[in-house]
């Protein structure tokens, strides 16, 4: 095993050495242990180059140990379950894991693109804007090349077979981050009886304590963490979420957490927690900053804290001979850890003339040389650090260094200080304040109910951090109005005395800043010091603009390492304080979130609700293809014996015109309106004179928006003096009811009207055709159905075939027709009864397509198809529907000058000149056949009419009504414009005799 893991320490770490796990990287077989991340296992296996940089193709290795990792971006798995772009530092190792480098086509070791490295100078800030925007027509070539050679991970092949889900949760206190401060806050909240959720992105709670040698309450810090977790786990109303990243802080204390549930392919792969928290404690710790010097991107340059983490937590030694470079005390701990683990620490290079505090003394006692007042100005080596060039630090970032000495090493551990992870605080709208002594932005005034704690609040030292967690927990409890249990902060082993950090934003080089070897700020985007200076020279002053010009902070890591250094360099270049430059806006997500977890279970058949009528099972059994109308699935047509849609629809249409058809119209919206003021209310809502309707009469009703445009339509019936039964379009049902309630409740509360939806209670069956009356009579109806006693547009309650129904003599086909409204529980029975009794009339079920053809032949509109929110009833030629005797919603708008224009688009019929082309709906219409003719309208409905033997179309045409008889042209793709004649919009039975028989 040792051969497979050359950098694995013989002992130590929180890994299970009894459980070796096989994995592969770019096809090479490797081995790690349970408890490893992919990153720690790769380091253990001696893999130092993990990819090529995005733009410059430079070899890159692991830099960090967590969410901040910019380089080790992986493609995990194969095929449909592949996961693009997680950082290796956040992928728990599992047996059989396959990982690939996402960058460096065709391979990490052999990289054609590396040639670009030599051209790097030309690929400066704004390169994309300057180069690829011109000439525009070349972009497709650029894009192809860039995507192929640059790109991050590859999109999985095929639909993701894994499962994702959402979970809503509520709590008193959500604690984001399970390090010392977060655990402390969670403990006090839990002991106080609060409902607590504690989430941490690591698979184990404890944060920095897991890689720390400190002691809490006289025991190892990790033991204290473990005990805290046990206590929390056993506390009622306390939910622990490991491997869970709080990635979004939204309005009103709504937070989103992505939980990685386990290796893919088992149960739920990821879960999205949607949490409404009364209070939030933000304890996400802090991120170490790298230092900016020449070639600081070489594999082997790592964060000092990451070096410590790999040694302490994973038992991995990332280098054999190290140089530690710092401007603060924390990196001394890494040096000590390296030395204790058996590495040689060639030197600690500390920019501070006075060097470090107590930890420095500890390092020196181990015999580690410390170079005070020095910096690393450059590193040697290409695929791996081979040495560091040391120069004297004069305290000035710009200028040049005179002479350097080289120290051979394979690891440079760097620390440029610490930045609290203020992302969530900022997402929540909180302010930040620059701390000139700690050299970082600290969370300031919060805008939502949140409090920051621990290292994320600038409390680096363990004792302070625990106490701050306790304080934050108590504050959150009191803000939530909960009593606080008496809890004391545990005793932490005394933190070493520290010396203050000193600013070191950029190390000068042998040449000036624009000519020296590259000094990287943002490793993932290859943004350098020179790029930021160039942006400033070109006039960019605002940090948000510089970000977009240089791509600083745009990667999957969102600039967790580079942003502060970038702002400091910009501030320096502009001669402004850092506080004045400020930060860019933090937005969700804190770390990348998969599409899978965003979608949750709303995929496939659960993507959107499918609503079905009470007769649906019959339609399914009949093999009807379904049409989606809103959320409804409606039978589209009923094919027989392998008919295609044209044949089926032609047969269905002729059956209705010649004998008898039956359609499920249950999806129509239905509303019961009743009350003393129902009539007055509906007079205001509908355009026609409702008061003229006697009880038992129906009317076609139209509703306009207050802007005069057609909103919805449908048959409405007066069922009682004070009661009406209204129908709406299928898609408009919910919106119409809500809109009516709005007028009732907000504008006319004095009107006493109750509206109740009956859409689901009643099913509607349309029986249409010359034999429809005969069919109902045959079934036995307790009310006479003849023309005199049951006239067109009448409505009666009845008993039909022994079932209670409401019968409407209305027609949407132009034929003699009845609509049967029946309790949905009996609808299928009624349908079957009709089908059985109708056999002698060759009863033919028809779907939505036939319904459309029949109504189009008659010139009946479909709101939402022939109208689009810009069409008035006058445009439709339905002025007859507008009452002259009353006001109604939208009436005044019809007098607006724009509505009176005589060149408005008006609804007309259209016949294709060739007599056989069914013009596609949406076809643009032009005034003449020339190449650049102006558009004058479009086709709204278009079908082949079997009954007439030719296609028919309905269209909105500018000034159409007075242009009847004129020929215009349909612009068809790939064809010459087709002439079409404008005709009246009623093609069949224009006098309307058939429905009155």
């Amino acid at each position: 095993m040792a051969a497979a893991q050359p950098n694995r320490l013989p002992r130590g770490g929180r890994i299970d050495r009894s459980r070796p796990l096989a994995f592969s990287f770019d096809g090479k077989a490797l081995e790690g242990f349970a408890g490893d991340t992919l990153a720690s296992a790769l380091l253990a296996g001696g893999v130092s180059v993990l990819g090529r940089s995005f733009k410059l193709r430079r070899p890159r290795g692991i830099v960090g140990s967590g969410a901040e990792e910019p380089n080790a971006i992986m493609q995990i798995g194969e095929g449909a379950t592949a996961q693009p772009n997680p950082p290796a530092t956040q992928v728990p190792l599992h047996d059989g894991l396959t990982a690939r480098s996402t960058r460096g086509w065709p391979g990490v070791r052999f990289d054609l693109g590396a040639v670009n490295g030599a051209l790097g100078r030309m690929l400066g800030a704004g390169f994309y804007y300057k180069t690829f925007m011109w000439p525009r027509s070349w972009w497709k070539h650029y894009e192809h090349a860039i995507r192929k050679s640059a790109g991050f991970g590859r999109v999985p092949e095929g639909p993701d077979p894994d499962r994702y889900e959402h979970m809503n949760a509520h709590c008193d206190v959500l604690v984001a981050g399970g390090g010392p401060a977060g655990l402390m806050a969670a403990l006090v909240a839990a002991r106080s009886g609060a409902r607590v959720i504690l989430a941490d992105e690591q698979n184990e709670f404890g944060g920095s304590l897991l890689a720390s040698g400190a002691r809490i309450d006289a025991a190892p810090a990790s033991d204290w963490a473990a005990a805290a977790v046990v206590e929390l786990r056993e506390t009622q109303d306390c939910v622990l979420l490991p491997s869970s990243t709080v990635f979004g802080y939204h309005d009103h204390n709504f937070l989103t957490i992505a939980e990685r549930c386990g290796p893919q392919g088992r149960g739920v792969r990821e879960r999205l927690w949607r949490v409404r928290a009364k209070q939030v404690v933000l304890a996400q710790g802090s991120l170490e900053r790298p230092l900016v010097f020449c070639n600081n991107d070489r594999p082997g340059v790592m964060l000092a804290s990451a070096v410590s983490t790999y040694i302490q937590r994973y038992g991995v030694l990332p280098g054999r001979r190290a140089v530690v470079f710092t401007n603060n005390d924390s990196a001394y701990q890494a040096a000590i850890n390296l030395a204790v683990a058996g590495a040689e620490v060639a030197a600690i290079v500390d920019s501070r003339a006075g060097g470090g505090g107590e930890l420095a003394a500890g390092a020196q006692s181990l015999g580690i040389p410390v170079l005070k007042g020095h910096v690393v100005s450059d590193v040697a080596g290409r695929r791996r650090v081979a040495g560091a060039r040391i120069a004297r630090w004069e305290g000035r970032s710009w200028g040049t260094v005179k002479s350097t000495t080289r120290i051979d090493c394979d690891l440079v551990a760097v620390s440029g200080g610490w930045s609290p992870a203020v992302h969530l605080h900022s997402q929540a709208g909180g302010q930040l304040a620059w701390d000139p002594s700690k050299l970082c932005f600290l969370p300031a005034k919060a805008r939502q109910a949140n409090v920051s704690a621990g290292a994320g609040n600038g409390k680096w030292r363990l004792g302070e951090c625990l106490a701050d967690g306790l304080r934050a927990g108590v504050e959150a409890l009191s803000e939530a109005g909960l009593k606080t249990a008496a809890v004391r902060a545990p005793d932490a082993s005394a933190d070493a005395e520290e010396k203050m950090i000193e600013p070191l934003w950029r190390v000068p080089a042998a040449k000036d800043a624009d000519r020296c070897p590259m000094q990287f700020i943002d490793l993932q985007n290859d943004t350098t010091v020179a790029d930021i200076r160039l942006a400033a020279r070109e006039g960019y002053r605002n940090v948000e603009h510089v970000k977009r010009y240089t791509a600083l902070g745009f990667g999957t890591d969102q600039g967790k390492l580079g942003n502060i250094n970038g702002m400091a360099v910009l501030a320096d270049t502009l001669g402004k304080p850092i506080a004045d430059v400020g930060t860019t806006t933090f937005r969700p997500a804190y770390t990348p979130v998969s599409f899978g977890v965003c979608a949750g279970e709303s995929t496939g058949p659960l993507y959107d609700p499918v609503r079905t009528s009470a007769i649906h099972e019959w339609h399914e059994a009949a093999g009807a293809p379904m049409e989606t109308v809103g959320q409804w699935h409606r039978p589209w047509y009923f094919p027989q014996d392998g008919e295609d849609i044209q044949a089926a629809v032609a047969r269905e249409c002729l059956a209705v015109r010649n004998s008898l058809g039956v359609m499920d119209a249950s999806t129509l919206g239905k509303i019961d309106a009743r009350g003393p003021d129902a009539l007055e209310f509906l007079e205001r809502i509908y355009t026609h004179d409702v008061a003229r309707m006697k009880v038992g009469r129906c009317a076609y009703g139209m509703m306009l928006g207050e802007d005069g445009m057609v909103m919805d339509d449908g048959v409405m019936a007066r069922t009682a003096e004070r009661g009406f039964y209204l129908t709406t379009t299928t898609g408009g049902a919910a919106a119409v009811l809500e809109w009516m309630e709005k007028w009732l409740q907000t504008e006319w509360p004095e009107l006493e009207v109750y509206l109740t939806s009956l859409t689901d209670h009643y099913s509607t069956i349309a029986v249409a055709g010359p034999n429809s009356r005969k069919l109902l009579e045959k079934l036995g109806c307790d009310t006479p159905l003849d023309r005199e006693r049951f006239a067109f547009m009448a409505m009666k309650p009845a008993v039909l075939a022994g079932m209670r129904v409401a019968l409407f003599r209305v027609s949407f086909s132009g034929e003699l027709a009845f609509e049967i409204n029946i309790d949905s529980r009996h609808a299928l029975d009624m349908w079957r009864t009709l089908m059985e009794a109708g056999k002698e009339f060759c009863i033919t079920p028809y779907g939505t397509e036939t319904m459309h053809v029949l109504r189009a032949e008659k010139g009946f509109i479909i709101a939402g198809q022939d109208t689009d929110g810009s069409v008035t009833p006058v445009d439709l030629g339905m002025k007859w529907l507008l009452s002259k005797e009353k006001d109604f919603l939208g009436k005044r708008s019809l007098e607006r000058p724009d509505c009176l224009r005589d060149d408005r688009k008006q609804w007309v019929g259209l016949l294709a000149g060739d007599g056989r082309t069914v013009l596609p709906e949406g076809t643009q219409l032009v005034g003449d056949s020339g190449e650049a003719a102006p558009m004058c309208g479009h086709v709204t409905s278009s079908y082949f009419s079997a009954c007439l033997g030719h296609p028919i179309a309905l269209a909105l045409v500018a000034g159409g009504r007075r242009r009847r008889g004129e020929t215009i042209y349909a612009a068809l793709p790939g064809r010459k414009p087709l002439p079409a004649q404008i005709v009246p919009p009623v093609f069949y039975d224009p006098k309307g005799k058939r429905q009155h028989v």
Partner: protein
Amino acid sequence: MLLIECPWCGPRAETEFSYGGEAGIFRPADPHALSDAEWADYLFYRSNPRGTHRELWNHAQGCRRWFGVERDTVSYRIKRTYCLSGASGGQPDGSAGGLEAGSGKRR
């Protein structure tokens, strides 16, 4: 996602509600007495303030009541929600009803 306090049902997730635009836009008593400009003002123009905005919301997935909300358009903080009319008192003592006439008294 906002947490909106329905005056009738209590605090509920934003997904249960639908938005109804600015509150206090009264329908003119006699639209036909208005000039085109006055009618357009009623129809199209809204205050769109930076800061407190009075707006209408409907508890669409809940009690179907429309109500008023005072929301800060910068911070999204909701200062208060209120019933629009006393037409339907939810409590026998009327304590939850008849709070405020939100609009439309002039007809």
